[in-house]
């Protein structure tokens, strides 16, 4: 199976996993290990990162020795997001940033206009930006034209678990920008959602709640791992075309006519 490419870093796993909402850090660690993910996202908001408030928790995540992808969750303005990104770069020694800019508090929909502006600022500042965006083709185009090598459209709003609300829009982005790494970020509820996205040809899945809120997060992480791998394999294998009429895979010549359609 081919690799996931994040700004030149090649990864065997196509799953990126979040570090929030688990019932304990131990459950989080076990779930992340079970997922096989090589990238862990983490949020600094509300932790008072300037005073190293989250240090104990960050050290637990660091103990996994995986790629860290800090995010700007909870930021409502360009200024907040840029400053959070800069702080994350210092704290975690990484130029990767998952850029999130809340545009609507009810469904946490990203603000597409400020997202593009903040992406430009951060790219110019040397960041490798992984922007969390909606499934709007034109916004995706702006992000790609600015130089994003990765874009992360939503399947549906964060934490909803509703899966891919608009597969058509996601397919359009995929088809238009085949060279860009496309990761579905948010809205994935069950492994079949992830598999559906992978079969569409997206490159990876980022999720958190679907695992953390499962009754057995470690098992669910494993289930997603399997689904994402299977979905990718299916995409690479090339699916058969759907047909209108049934076509028997075994000959029906020996069946009487009233058994045939």
């Amino acid at each position: 199976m081919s690799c996931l490419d994040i700004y030149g870093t090649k990864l065997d796993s196509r799953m990126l996993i979040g570090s929030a909402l688990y019932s304990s850090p131990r459950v989080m660690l076990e779930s992340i290990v079970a997922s096989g993910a090589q990238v862990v996202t983490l949020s600094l908001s509300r932790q008072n990162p300037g005073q190293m408030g989250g240090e104990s928790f960050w050290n637990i995540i660091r103990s996994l020795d995986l790629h860290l992808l800090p995010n700007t969750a909870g930021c409502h303005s360009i200024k907040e997001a840029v400053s959070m990104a800069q702080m994350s770069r210092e704290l975690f020694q990484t130029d990767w940033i998952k850029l999130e800019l809340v545009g609507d508090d009810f469904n946490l929909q990203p603000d597409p206009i400020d997202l593009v502006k903040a992406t430009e600022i951060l790219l110019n500042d040397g960041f490798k930006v992984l922007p969390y965006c909606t499934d709007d083709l034109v916004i995706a185009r702006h992000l790609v034209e600015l130089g994003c090598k990765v874009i992360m459209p939503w399947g549906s709003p964060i934490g909803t678990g509703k899966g891919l609300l608009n597969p058509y829009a996601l397919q359009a982005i995929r088809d238009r920008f085949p060279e860009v790494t496309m990761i579905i970020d948010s809205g994935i509820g069950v492994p079949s959602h992830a598999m559906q996205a992978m079969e569409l040809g997206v490159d990876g899945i980022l999720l958190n709640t679907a695992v953390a809120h499962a009754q057995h997060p470690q098992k669910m992480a494993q289930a997603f791992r399997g689904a994402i791998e299977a979905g990718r394999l299916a995409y690479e294998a090339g699916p058969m075309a759907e047909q209108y009429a049934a076509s028997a895979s075994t000959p029906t010549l020996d069946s009487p006519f009233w058994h045939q359609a």
Partner: protein
Amino acid sequence: MSEPSKEQPKIAILGAGLLGRLLAFSLRNDAFIELFDQDSGQAEDSSAILAAAMLAPLAESADASKGIMQLGELALNTWPRLLQQLPEKIFFQRKGSLLLAFEQDRGSLLNFERNLKGDNYRKVGAQQIHALESEINPRFAQGLFLPDEGQLDNRQLLTVLGKVLRAQTNIRWHSNSFAQIAEQRVLLNGEEYGCFDWIIDCRGLGAKDTQTDLRGVRGEVIRLHAPDVTLNRPVRLMHPRYPIYIAPKPDHLFVVGATQIETEDRRQPTLRSAMELLSACFSVHSGFAEAEILQIQSGLRPAYLDNEPQMRVKGRVISLNGLFRHGYLLSPVMVDLCRSYLLGETIDARYQQAIPQLMKIESTGEAIKELA
């Protein structure tokens, strides 16, 4: 303080929060105790003073193991007996708890229910909610009623325990003291102090100097006086990140909490957290609009990696720690475990059946019976 007799062990207890006080109380007839308290005696900087002191093993099980629930059930049955031994009445009730969700949080409620480790609850609709809590917002049409859960008044308890312990002639209370443990010895304000048969570490996050796997989890809590509001029992409101509770205390006092944030940030509560908690209150009962905000506070819960408590024994040093958000829920069990261990009595087998790692013995000290 009277002189120790040869039969009774000398015990140092570091930390005079809930665990330290309860342990000293449980050993008051068995030992000579020196209690080292970083505070003035009012537990002002302890996690115990902030807590809502809900005794809700089933509700907590949504985010905790079955073992924690089982220990909480044992402790819930122990509390009335324990409180009866005190000279003053402490508010304690067992009228259950009510969990509510707005329509848009239906998914969170369903998730909560799916994660419960027991089945002693029932689903309630608008009418039943009204029958249980007639004053709350009639928009609530769905919830869960957990009939066995309880609560107590933590501040009353800490005060009364303080009075009782101070009256004991075999207990010496060191207020405003900074005690540490180094190589099986007590250091008081940096100097080696005394000679003890047992040293019990109940310092919570204060023990981080010797236990590197302890971490603090921030919680923010608001205390309100709301004469216009009467609630019969704690109400929990579903929230996408953590259930927010409103725990009624006597005289229309309410404890509203608590955020749960993975940080050791010790600043005062943030505006965002205060807004979340206060808007939750107002959404449950409009009578909170004119409530007086008595206190907004933050604190750090001491937790291990699995958010479960542990008693650790190393020689004659015993540590009780990692009670996370379950201080009141689990302290009777931890205290009984420790007491039984150091007095050489039989340990209730149910404790370790519930949580096999509840007790970790790194090296054994001599049990008291052997000493005698």
